[in-house]
């Protein structure tokens, strides 16, 4: 009979759609977890990404968020496990920037200050990278395509820096080298807001 067959078909279609929806809900958090994973990628000196690739969407897009803290406005707080950098605004608000984190960034947590700032910073590949790629210049003057990106904020006298990147796809990941990186538009924005002497707090999620 036509009607029962149509009803069965509709039921099956409904079931399939529900299944797809359920799968999407289950997969989405998994994809978000993957995005916070580790990306094995070398620096790419000279690579200039497409402008479209430098525009972040979703949680890693620069946005004003609710953020409770006792730190003063103007303080930078980095949550490495979340891959976010917060610039405290006051009134329980913060500007939140998506970041990529280097493995070195996991080795410590603490308190530093921005000691200096530089536009279009220079890049000196680490010795182990030069060993792998001996044709690399040992010094590369800053500019588009430089792995340090458009701006750098140096942290105390440490090797750690907040800098831009020519690899926007690394935002949200821990990469094999480098410190705290933002897409160039974001690091330029942060650079304009943050004076030398700004307090920077780096926090990791507690490990059980």
């Amino acid at each position: 009979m036509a009607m029962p067959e149509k009803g069965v078909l509709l039921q099956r279609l409904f079931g399939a759609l529900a299944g797809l929806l359920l799968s999407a809900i289950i997969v989405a958090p998994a994809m978000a977890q993957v995005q916070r994973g580790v990306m094995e990628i070398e620096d790419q000196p000279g690579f200039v990404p497409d402008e479209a690739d430098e525009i972040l969407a979703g949680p890693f897009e620069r946005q004003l968020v609710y953020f409770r803290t006792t730190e003063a406005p103007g303080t930078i707080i980095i949550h490495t496990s979340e891959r976010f950098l917060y610039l405290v605004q006051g009134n329980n608000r913060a500007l939140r920037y998506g970041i990529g984190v280097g493995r070195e960034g996991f080795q410590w947590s603490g308190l530093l200050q921005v000691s200096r700032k530089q536009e279009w910073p220079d890049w000196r590949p680490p010795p182990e990278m030069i060993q792998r790629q001996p044709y690399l210049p040992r010094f590369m003057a800053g500019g588009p395509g430089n792995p340090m990106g458009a701006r750098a904020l140096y942290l105390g006298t440490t090797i750690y820096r907040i800098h831009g990147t020519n690899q926007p796809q690394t935002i949200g990941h821990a990469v094999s080298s480098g410190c705290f990186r933002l897409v160039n538009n974001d690091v330029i924005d942060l650079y304009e807001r943050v004076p030398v002497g700004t307090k920077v707090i780096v926090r990791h999620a507690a490990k059980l």
Partner: protein
Amino acid sequence: MGFAIVRRARTAFWLTGAALLAGCAGDDVVSPAVTTPALPPVTAEQLVGRWGLGSYHRDTDRERTVKEARAQCRNPYVIKAGSEGGVIMNLADEKEPRELLVKPTREGRTFIGPGERPAGDLTDMEIIAVDDTSFTVQWVDPDVSSRYGTMVYVNCAPRSARPAAG
């Protein structure tokens, strides 16, 4: 090693002389096209050594890059002599070095690259400047050049240890 300074003044002198003579003779003369000044001859021997290697994209960064490259003598780029009269260097993006030949052209340009390819081949680098302490190259391949910029090699040997100019 002693490199002569790029002879821009000599090139200008001959161009001016040619124009004056042509004027005395009363004939119409088409001035020679302006070209990159010819470099003095460069030998493979002059490239052998330890070099601080830096790169830049903007000419305004050259002076600073030369200073920084000199500081990179703590991790020098070493160029050795090859067995076929060339030098052992890396081509762009190649981890293993190989023997490259110095390839001058009749127009006074000098390239460094695989001997089996003609001067100016896409895999070559061109020496665009030389002086007593450094030489500067650009990759012929525009993609490679855009990635690595202008590469300057600064000699790490003290002046007294360098062989006299030939």
